[in-house]
């Protein structure tokens, strides 16, 4: 079936089987391989994208269901000239990644909340990020990075 996906502000017309998962449509049909695929049943979180502004598992959504929604992936974070998004810069500075497999999911999950993260308690922030699994066990750096991102953004 032909569907139109709106990803990072651009529209893409693609021909997919109805069973095509959004994660696979992003990676294989649109070539946006920044969205990673781990468990494919919603547990690990590395395929998380924003659907109409809210984090959602792209492996638990049919591409067809995503038609009409505003999708944002990790490719939509950095500026066109390659300048990192403040959240990405914070992950770099605070050792928020090691192998990088879980990173797209963490960045996308943190995107709607990082402006408030400095005021969140450790419990609240860890709860908000709790649906993401890091295989390198680098959670301390990740939490520090999310907390620091707003300050990096606001720095002159």
């Amino acid at each position, binding site marked *: 079936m032909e569907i139109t996906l709106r990803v990072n502000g651009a529209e893409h017309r693609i021909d997919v089987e109805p069973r095509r998962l959004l994660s696979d449509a992003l990676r294989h049909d649109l070539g946006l391989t920044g969205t990673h695929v781990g468990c494919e*049943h*919603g547990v690990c979180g590395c395929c998380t994208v924003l659907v109409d502004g809210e984090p959602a598992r792209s*492996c*638990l959504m049919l591409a067809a*269901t995503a038609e009409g929604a505003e999708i944002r992936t990790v490719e939509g974070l950095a500026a066109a000239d390659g300048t990192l998004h403040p959240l990405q810069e914070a992950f770099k500075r605070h050792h928020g990644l090691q192998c990088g497999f879980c990173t797209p999911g963490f960045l996308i999950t943190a995107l709607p909340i990082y402006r408030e993260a400095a005021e969140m308690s450790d419990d609240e922030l860890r709860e908000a990020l709790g649906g993401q699994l890091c295989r390198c066990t680098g959670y301390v750096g990740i939490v520090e990075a999310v907390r620091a991102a707003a300050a990096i953004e606001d720095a002159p």
Partner: protein
Amino acid sequence: MKPAPFAYHRPSTREEVDGLLAELGADAKLLAGGQSLIPILNMRLAAPAHIVDLNFLRDEPGQPVLEDGALAFGPLVRLRAAEHSPLVAERLPLLAEVLGHVAHPAIRSRGTLVGSIAHADPAAELPALLVLLEGSARVRGAGGARTVPAVELFAGHLETTLEPGEWIEEIRLPAHRGGAFEEFARRHGDYALCGVAAIADGGGVALSFVGMGPVPLRLTGDVADAVGRLEPEDDIHASAAYRLHLARRLGERVARRALEAA
């Protein structure tokens, strides 16, 4: 880890859903949030010939509405919308507390209340809450609509009493201020080894447990009696004896909190 092929249907009205289910029969599955169904499809635990996607129904409310002293949730009200709903905060704060324990924000942003009830997983929180509050489901099909009280809705593990061709178009939870919920999971967001919700009921409390038998029960009387009626099973995560221990401890705690809140 990919779904088997299926034919895809995208109805725009509830009547069209009735017609599709009448025509396609047991080969069709309804898709709303997909947070239970898609994993099942990905793992090929099920391979329905038809998927009926409810996400394109027109004019469906995304928020609960108040009707006759109850909160009514249509088929596309997401868990996250209910969790942050001002109406829920005012009329049924227990629901917001319970929803905070359902998986993770990225799951709650898609999953629906009606879908969780229709899935009828006794390890899920919402079926227990529906039973505890003596809520109901509005069920419909090509033959008409009817209201099914919560206590008559669940037939067993992942099984409801719906007839072929019927589907749930709405669930209703009576407004209630107070109540308490606790659960124990190895990691927050995992299925709980045991959970329990309680509300004040007459002079005592009513309790409903999560993950402690094939269907959620509404239990009144003292906590020890209620726990005595539970039938949890041993599995890889915990023994039945340990689950009963949790039920007693959590049950006492929520019963106390529910009475204090009343």
